[in-house]
């Protein structure tokens, strides 16, 4: 791979006693979009500010095209800085200047351009970002989304080689959010600048970036292409990509898939060594996909949530349950035989009937028939994990049905 444009080596930074970065290594390559994702307050902005010299690391080294930053002469640093733009999370527009003056400022202060040239370049950017109507207004007089666009226009007006975006989409509505990401991707291709984007927008940000770095616990545990990210089996990575699903799982009160999978594998290992028994249950909604398509997301989520929560209640603290597939829940019942597992399934069905998710009246306009299926495997001897899962999927039986029209209705 080519030499990185910017390379951070073992960067440490703390504010007072509060350590923000502890040994961060990161490479930014020329002409690429690098996304930095991480929890808020995790030091993403601090990391970005190191790249532009707004903050100096306590220790570690920043290399720009292989040359350490501290060996830069004043003139070299100046030239490097002129080729950068930074877009602040808070936009940092000059609030006592008009929109036009804000965008023109970098050009005016840099000198070397005539008023007409400045005018032309500023107006071109304003047009691009649909800001012609607010030329003479002050930042506080325009909406948050517009302010963001003014900040973007100001960052792009100098035709920089590299732009650092500090959460460019925070606080925008979904339409504008995609528009901004799209814009970054589009101009990046057209102009060819290097971009570093700090963002919360998972998964949208992956679609436009060439590289992704995750910052977590003061370090960068992962950096690579979005595809490498998706196929990574690291737990931290999984947590980040499935952030949205995990919210759904939290609503259903289920464990994480990784947790349950790990416990199940452990139990399968142990089963030969100790005389013990446990059961595994797989509950499926047939089909959640159809429910989602025809009755909507919320109905689908409610049904799944009800299953998850009643399962959690029935299991108590002893068992483990997690969303296994899009419409599957896998539960692990230690020290339980098949009969006990069957009782739990009955309980769940009872609970779901009580909460009326199996009642056609809950779905007044559009109603779709669906079935709940379950399979129980009592494990008494060693078997392979994959074999167990396959057996569960094969042995599924219908445990409850929802029919939109009562039987014998005729039609």
């Amino acid at each position, binding site marked *: 791979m080519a030499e990185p444009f910017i390379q951070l080596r073992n960067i440490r930074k703390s504010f007072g006693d509060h350590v923000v970065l502890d040994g961060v290594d990161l490479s930014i390559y020329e002409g690429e979009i690098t996304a930095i994702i991480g929890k808020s307050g995790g030091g993403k902005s601090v990391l970005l500010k190191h790249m532009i010299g707004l903050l100096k690391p306590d220790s570690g080294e920043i290399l720009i095209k292989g040359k350490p930053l501290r060996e830069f002469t004043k003139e070299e640093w100046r030239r490097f800085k002129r080729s950068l733009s*930074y877009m602040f999370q808070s936009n940092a527009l000059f609030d006592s200047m008009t929109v036009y003056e804000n965008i023109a400022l970098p050009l005016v202060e840099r000198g070397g351009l005539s008023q007409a040239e400045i005018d032309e370049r500023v107006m071109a950017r304003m047009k691009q970002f649909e800001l012609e109507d607010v030329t003479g207004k002050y930042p506080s007089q325009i909406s948050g989304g517009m302010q963001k666009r003014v900040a973007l226009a100001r960052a792009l007006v100098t035709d920089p080689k590299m732009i650092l975006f500090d959460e460019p989409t925070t606080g925008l509505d979904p339409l504008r959010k995609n528009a901004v990401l799209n814009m970054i991707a589009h101009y990046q291709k057209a102009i060819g600048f290097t971009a570093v984007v700090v963002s919360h927008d998972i998964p949208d940000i992956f679609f436009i970036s060439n590289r992704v770095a995750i910052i977590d616990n003061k370090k960068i545990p992962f950096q690579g292409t979005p595809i490498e990210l998706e196929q990574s089996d690291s737990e931290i990575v999984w947590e980040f990509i499935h952030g949205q699903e995990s919210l759904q799982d939290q609503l259903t009160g289920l464990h994480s898939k990784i947790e349950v999978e790990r416990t199940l594998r452990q139990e399968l290992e142990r089963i030969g060594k100790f005389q013990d028994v446990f059961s595994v249950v797989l509950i499926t909604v047939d089909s959640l996909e159809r429910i989602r398509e025809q009755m909507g997301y919320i109905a689908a989520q409610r049904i799944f949530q009800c299953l998850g929560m009643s399962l959690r209640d029935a299991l108590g603290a002893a068992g483990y349950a997690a969303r296994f597939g899009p419409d599957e829940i896998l539960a692990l019942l230690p020290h339980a035989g098949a009969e006990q597992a069957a009782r739990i399934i009955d309980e769940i069905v009872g609970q779901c009937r009580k909460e009326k998710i199996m009642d056609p009246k809950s779905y007044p306009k559009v109603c779709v028939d669906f079935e709940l299926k379950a399979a129980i495997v009592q494990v008494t001897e060693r078997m392979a994990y994959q074999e167990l899962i396959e057996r569960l999927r094969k042995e599924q039986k219908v445990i409850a049905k929802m029919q939109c029209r009562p039987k014998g209705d005729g039609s």
Partner: protein
Amino acid sequence: MKDRAVGPFAFFAWWGRLFLGLLGELGAMAIFAMHGFLLIFTYPFQFKKIIQQVYFIGVKSVLIISLIGLFTGMVLGLQGYYTLVKFGSEGLLGAAVALSLIRELGPVLTALMIIGRAGSSMAAEIGIMRISEQIDALDTMDINPMRFLVAPRIAASIIVFPLLTALFDVIGIIGGYLTGVVQLGINSGIYFNRMYDSVVLEDVSGGFYKSLAFAFVVAVICCYQGYFTHMRPEGFGARGVSLATTSAVVLSCVSVLIVDYVLTSFLL
């Protein structure tokens, strides 16, 4: 400084810390002042921004300075008359009013008024720019924030303070004339003749030097307080800006009076 001394040394340690802190702050301010001052003369000159500041600090202060000058002169005329008449030398009123205005009251009161009007807003404006990351934004655009924000303000203050002081002096003298001559009936020829006799160029230039020194001190302190709003340990955000503004006003007022004393003792 983490090692806190205990027992009898705690007292000395406290003073030591205070003194070191103060020394550090003064040093930082001195560097800030020199840096800001030298940046005035870097190419390309920021004529437009300096003119804007001259307008803001100077032109907009004309009315208030005239008003204060007028009443200061008038009250000087009254007080001076009642004191001088006891010695039968009310003819010296013109000299008394002019000398106290030109040598002392003009520069000091003008400085205090500008601190209240423009110094506070300098600190607040720069402070808000600091906390809303606008200063960082300038930095990332390779615009030197010291040059962009501080230098024009120092330059404009140095231009404006002597001019406003002169205005203050003239209007004050007219104020003295109003009470002394028009109201209390001193001969106007005597009022101006005594003034002409007693005021020498050293008096005028002394006042001029003072106003130059005040300009520099006030602009530096107010800009410094705003510029380093974010470094204040006791307040962040809007509260930090309000504290910065307060200390800008208080510190510059105190400094003006201290500098006044020091300069007066050298100039006399």
